[in-house]
């Protein structure tokens, strides 16, 4: 009955094999073979994932645990290396392998200019990335999740710094790694804390009523906060979000992979997984909601003044992640997962579309030098427009349903200001996305003649993934049709129901009139923003340098500079002090001083060796007399002499 679920180990194993083949054979395999292996393993994983997904519908509250081998086995502590298949992990499997596969196919064309060896390296990293993410969502305890968690951190570092000859890219990769590590520390502490209280980290043992009852309120608040610190690192929330926009240094499909299918959704997954704990910690939930809202507004305001096509999309990701955390904060775990899913579709679509544009423009990323691409790249244009409409929350595209659910949940919470801020965020989202769209595809072409001459639609390997993702962006929302349109049509909520542990605080149910009103307000305002941006930027694109408030936004609120001044500089100063004073002065002083003392004393003692036989004999006699005296009278002088003569 659980045929596919028992084969679940193949899902991460296949990408790992792909990674090994491509990684080891990158110098001997041909490009087409590398692409086929790289994409093929993901496709196979996807096929198994589909089977698992359909089986998981019937699991109810009993997940399938596939034990592979004992991982840590000591007295009183047993952590198995095992996978857990349930509704949540099977859904994530679909997103990761499905979107991941499309990105692999896309990459095979996009990266075609690379040398074979680097092409192989790229696909190896990509497969490893997918493998790590699968490990993360499949692990049946927090430790396995942590392995995957670190794995995606490593792979993002490798892929962001893929073009390692450019030092700025290396810095961006390093920044991503360091920021992730800061968050990881929180996650690690949370794991230890859970181990300390319960002695186990398996989900099936932690998230039971008896186990949860053993946590004191302090435990719960601290653990959830520490887990959230981990999530802010991986999912790019304030204060650890600045690595994500810088991660644009990597190839565009990598950005799509990081932003849509893997990596940034890890934080959401982890909190949804631990929803039993979070429901017990209202303080943490409040903090999450506030952080999420602040992030979504901050990132949205930055996005409206960015000129790099990928930077706009990066900040929009940060902003959309803010929505997901807002949903988590107000207790709508289904809403968060739903938004993860729809966001995976349209964000992958937008990034791949942006990649297609960049490809056609010969690595020009500045939208001020684009414009009028509509007639040159019809498929990219249409699909990109669909992606923009989806992220802006226009019905009936996917983003509408998920964003509406998040906003409705925020309205139903105790704090309706969150809803108001969320709507402002939605307006900003619509505005900056259509600013991007209009400046890229509408108006006149503003690049060089040579670029215009070479403008072309991308090859099929690029456009087919775009079309598939565009279809998903249109229909993806129908998995979560809200109560007002049709009763019991929210299939995702029914699907995820078994893994959401019901807390004491049930969601307020809004009546239909209110819900229609909420939809009307957010859609109406977003529509106005779209129309304004469309008209404004297709006719008068924003080409001049920003001044005043716009300059602050274009410079990302100077957050990077503030971090530089408040955190990096003092740290570097401490490091310089340690290096110059403690290291060079004290430690080197001790080490060199020892050597210098030995040399000095050696030089002095050398004078005894005068060559005068008489002196030698005199010294010999004197020392013999001394030893005889010690032998007779020195017995109790001190323990050292006792030790010498006994």
């Amino acid at each position, binding site marked *: 009955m659980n045929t596919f679920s028992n084969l679940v180990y193949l899902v991460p194993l296949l990408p790992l094999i792909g990674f090994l083949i491509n990684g080891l054979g990158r110098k001997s395999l041909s490009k087409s073979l590398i692409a086929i292996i790289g994409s093929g393993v993901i496709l196979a994983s996807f096929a198994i994932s589909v089977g698992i997904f359909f089986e998981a519908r019937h699991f109810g509250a009993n997940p399938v645990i596939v034990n592979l081998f004992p991982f840590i086995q000591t007295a009183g502590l047993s952590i198995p290396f095992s996978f857990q298949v349930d509704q949540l992990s099977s859904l994530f499997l679909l997103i990761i392998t499905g979107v991941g596969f499309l990105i692999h196919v896309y990459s095979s064309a996009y990266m075609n200019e690379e040398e074979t060896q680097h092409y192989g390296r790229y696909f190896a990293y990509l497969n490893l990335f997918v493998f790590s993410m699968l490990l993360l969502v499949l692990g049946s305890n927090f430790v396995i999740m942590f392995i995957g968690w670190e794995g995606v951190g490593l792979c993002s570092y490798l892929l962001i710094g893929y073009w390692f000859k450019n030092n700025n890219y290396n810095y961006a990769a390093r920044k991503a790694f360091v920021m992730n590590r800061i968050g990881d520390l929180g996650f690690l502490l949370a794991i230890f804390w859970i181990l300390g209280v319960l002695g186990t980290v398996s989900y099936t043992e932690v998230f039971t009523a008896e186990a949860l009852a053993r946590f004191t309120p302090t435990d719960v608040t601290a653990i959830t906060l520490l887990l959230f610190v981990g999530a802010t690192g991986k999912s790019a929330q304030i204060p650890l979000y600045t690595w994500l926009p810088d991660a644009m240094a990597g190839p565009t499909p990598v950005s799509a992979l990081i932003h849509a299918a893997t990596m940034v959704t890890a934080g959401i997954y982890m909190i949804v997984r631990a929803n039993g704990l979070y429901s017990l910690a209202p303080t943490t939930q409040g903090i999450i909601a506030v952080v999420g809202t602040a992030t979504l507004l901050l990132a949205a305001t930055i996005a409206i003044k960015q000129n790099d096509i990928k930077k706009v999309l990066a900040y929009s990701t940060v902003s959309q992640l803010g929505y997901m955390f807002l949903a988590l904060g107000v207790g709508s775990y289904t809403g968060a997962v739903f938004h993860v899913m729809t966001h995976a579709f349209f964000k992958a679509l937008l990034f791949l579309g942006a990649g297609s544009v960049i490809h056609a423009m010969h690595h020009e990323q500045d939208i001020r030098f684009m414009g009028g691409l509509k007639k040159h790249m019809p498929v990219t244009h249409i699909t990109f427009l669909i992606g923009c409409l989806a992220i802006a929350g226009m019905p009936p595209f996917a983003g509408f349903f998920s964003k509406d659910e998040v906003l409705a949940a925020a309205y139903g919470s105790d704090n309706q200001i969150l809803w108001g801020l969320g709507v402002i965020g939605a307006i900003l989202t619509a505005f900056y996305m259509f600013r991007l769209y209009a400046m890229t595809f509408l108006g006149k072409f503003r690049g060089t003649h040579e670029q215009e001459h070479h403008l072309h639609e991308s090859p099929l390997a690029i456009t087919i993934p775009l079309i598939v993702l565009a279809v998903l962006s249109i229909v993806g929302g129908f998995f979560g049709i809200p109560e007002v349109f049709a009763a019991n049509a929210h299939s995702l909520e029914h699907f995820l129901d078994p893994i959401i542990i019901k807390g004491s605080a049930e969601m307020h149910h809004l009546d239909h009139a209110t819900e229609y009103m909420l939809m009307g307000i957010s859609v109406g305002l977003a529509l106005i923003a779209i129309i304004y941006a469309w008209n404004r930027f297709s006719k008068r694109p924003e080409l001049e340098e920003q001044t005043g408030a716009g300059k602050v936004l274009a410079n990302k609120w100077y957050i990077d500079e503030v971090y530089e001044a408040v955190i990096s500089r003092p740290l570097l100063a401490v490091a310089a002090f340690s290096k110059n004073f403690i290291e060079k002065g004290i430690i080197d002083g001790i080490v060199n001083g020892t050597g210098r003392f030995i040399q000095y004393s050696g030089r002095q003692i*050398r004078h005894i*060796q*005068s*060559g*005068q*036989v*008489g002196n030698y*004999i*005199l010294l010999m*006699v004197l020392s013999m007399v001394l030893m005889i005296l010690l032998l007779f009278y020195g017995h109790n002088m001190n323990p050292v002499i006792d030790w010498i003569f006994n």
Partner: protein
Amino acid sequence: MPIQYYITLSVVLFCIGVVGVLTRRNAIIIFMCVELMLNAVNLLMVAFSKMHHGNALATNPDSLAGVEAQLFVFFTMVVAAAEVSVGLAIIVMLYRNTHSVDVNFLNRLKN
């Protein structure tokens, strides 16, 4: 005769040897002083041997206690004879090279 006399004589001989070695520069004299020290010790050994043997005979007429020391004296003399032959050879070589038997010329091993 009481053993103290022998001990005193040996100590005096030994000290004369030590002082001779320390103060004289003539290699042959130093050599003689070394022999003097060796013989001071030999004398002491013989004296103690005689004393122990005499004490043991008083209780047991067949006792051999203490005679080993006299054997050791013979060993010492044999070793001393060998040493003398080597030492004198060195001194002869020293004289051939430096035309002197002053040990203070032997400072080639300095540094």
